[in-house]
């Protein structure tokens, strides 16, 4: 009897607090608003316009969600991101920026806040994300691949923004602006971490999808998968952290 009463009370309290029922894998917008207000609002703003109270003090501005353009996506250039792409950013943060990893949040909170963030852009109501970019298997890091990647880096004039040494100090570095007119500094690839993720596939994906809202374009139409992997390995060779972790004899391309 006592057990049944206690169970009923727990269920009743829980139902009152949980509000509307949430189906698995579908975020609840109302609850997502609570999550957003607790964690995100100070930077991204109540309107999702990237103009929260902290934004004016940041050199790298928070994303304006209203256009539905996201830097980190698995989808092609111009496409909306998948929910899993947004969760990837929540889980990993963006190194070197004020966007921390929200890995400590529970899955339900992440799911809900993604549902809420999507309400800032009408695109999510009218468009569907395109299929993810297909990433072929990594052929493996090698000195030869790094050397080829160096040539790809030069061929595509990456140094114009990122600099000859990858330190983000190319001739155009100080002229870059994002779609909102905010000044940008190209990423310093020698810092040891890559902003959108350190995995090989994360770097490959950036070449193919571009970074929406920034001057970093997609090279999907011009860069072959082979060249792209060589470029990935060259970028990795610039990172002292990555090069240090490679097996001896495989780091000859590191500068």
């Amino acid at each position, binding site marked *: 009897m006592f057990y049944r009463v206690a169970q009923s009370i727990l269920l009743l*309290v829980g139902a009152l607090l*949980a509000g509307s029922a949430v189906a*698995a894998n579908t975020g609840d917008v109302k609850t997502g608003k609570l*999550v957003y207000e*607790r964690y995100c609002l*100070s930077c991204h703003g109540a309107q999702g316009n990237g103009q929260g109270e902290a934004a004016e*003090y940041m050199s790298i501005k928070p994303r304006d969600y209203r256009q539905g353009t996201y830097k980190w996506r698995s989808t092609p250039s111009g496409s909306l991101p998948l929910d899993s792409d947004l969760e990837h950013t929540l889980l990993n943060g963006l190194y070197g920026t004020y966007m921390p990893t929200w*890995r400590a949040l529970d899955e339900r909170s992440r799911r809900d806040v993604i549902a809420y963030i999507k309400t800032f852009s009408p695109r999510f109501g009218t468009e569907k994300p395109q299929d993810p970019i297909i990433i072929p298997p990594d052929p493996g890091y090698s000195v030869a691949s790094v050397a080829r990647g160096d040539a790809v880096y030069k061929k595509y004039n990456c140094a114009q923004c990122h600099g000859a040494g990858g330190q983000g100090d190319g001739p155009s570095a100080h002229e870059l602006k994002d779609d909102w007119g905010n000044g940008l500094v190209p990423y310093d690839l020698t810092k040891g971490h890559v902003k959108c993720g350190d995995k090989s596939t994360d770097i490959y994906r950036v070449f193919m999808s571009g970074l929406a809202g920034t001057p970093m374009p997609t090279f999907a139409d011009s860069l072959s998968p082979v060249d792209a992997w060589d470029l990935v390995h060259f970028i990795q060779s610039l990172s002292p952290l990555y090069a240090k972790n490679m097996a001896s004899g495989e780091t000859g391309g590191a500068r």
Partner: protein
Amino acid sequence: MTRHGSLRVVAQVAIFAIVMFAFISPASAIPAFARKYSLRCTACHESWPVLNDFGRNFRDNGYQLRLGRDDTVTADPGYWPVAIHVAPSYVYKKVTNQATDQGNKDLGSGGVADAGMDLLTAGVLTPNISFLVVPTGFASNGNVHLESYWAYFSRLIKNSDWFNVRVGQFEIDLPASSHRNLELTDSFLLYAYHPSVPGGTNLAGYDMGANQRGVEIVGHDANSLTRYTATIFTAHDSLGSANGFDSPSFYGHLQKYFRFNDGPVSQAEVGLWGALANYPTQYLTNGGVPIAGSGSHLQSSTRYGMEANIWFGPLAAPLHLDLVYGHGSDKKDLFQGTADRSGSFNGGFLEAIWVPRADLMHWSVFGRYDLIRNQTQPLSTAPSNFNDQNQWTVGAVYTIAYSIRDEVALHAEISSDKAKGVGYGGLDQRTDSIMFGVDFVY
């Protein structure tokens, strides 16, 4: 006016004050971590100062977000790792059956409390070495002391989160922090309670809630959902024993969190904890005065128990229940010859924190019920329920402003404590208090 009548009037005033304060406009200032990371207090605190999951993980990681902006070189040059916390408040307190030269009296007194100030300085010195120093005091008596001071070394072995070390004076990893609780007018009975002999003293001053000097090993998974701490420390308020680590004491805590992706319960936690504090019972003396650090014949004061937490509703606006049980015992010799056996007790508390989703984070409603039941009185002739205690506290916090720069809140609470047989002539003693004030950090 009767006791109940006067309390009713004060309660009405408090409710009126809460309603009035709810219309005060926001203010702003500069707290340390919020300014450093551009996050509101709400990112780390379920309801300030109670940590949420993100805050607990941030603390376990040595106050690092690990995104290349943590240490003094890479952080924003404008960052200065200092925050100030003050809580001016009105407190009315009434104690019954107080022994006085004029006989048995009920004493009631109120006024704006002589508030002190916490200077909270914390940050990251260099990647994976962080610190916290908290000078506190500054009240009218002029006293200032370091409540906390520690250095924390993260990821000492193979870049693993499972081995971090804290050195200094710090709060041990309690089931519920007594420095981060919402209640301001009471204390956790379980943490500070010791069995006692009527009119006698107990050498063991061990208050689990007090900060201890020692070394703590902390380990946790990436999200701090499984975590442990193991601490060796010098027992609180001991004069010190003649050991390499004087008054050697130990504490351990193991926690496991469980998350539920659907349903009314969003998270649950279970934990085990235990403490063994050793106090010297004999000292060398000089002029009859015990010499610090010369103690011997260590006797133990043990505490152990378990905890369970459950969160209903979304973790962003939960109803959080925290149930803690503990058993304690103090060796006979700690009672300085006035006891004829060791003393033991059972105790615990149930705490509830509710953050209503209708007005996220502006309101927090909280309550706690503490219980102490003596199991074995150290003096066999003492009444079996001597100093059994019941305490309850309920209150509410209305946060006027929370930003990346400050937090200011209005706070009201009522508390009542009843202890068996400790008042005048062995009568029960009841302590009632009511408090409302402003609590701000910037």
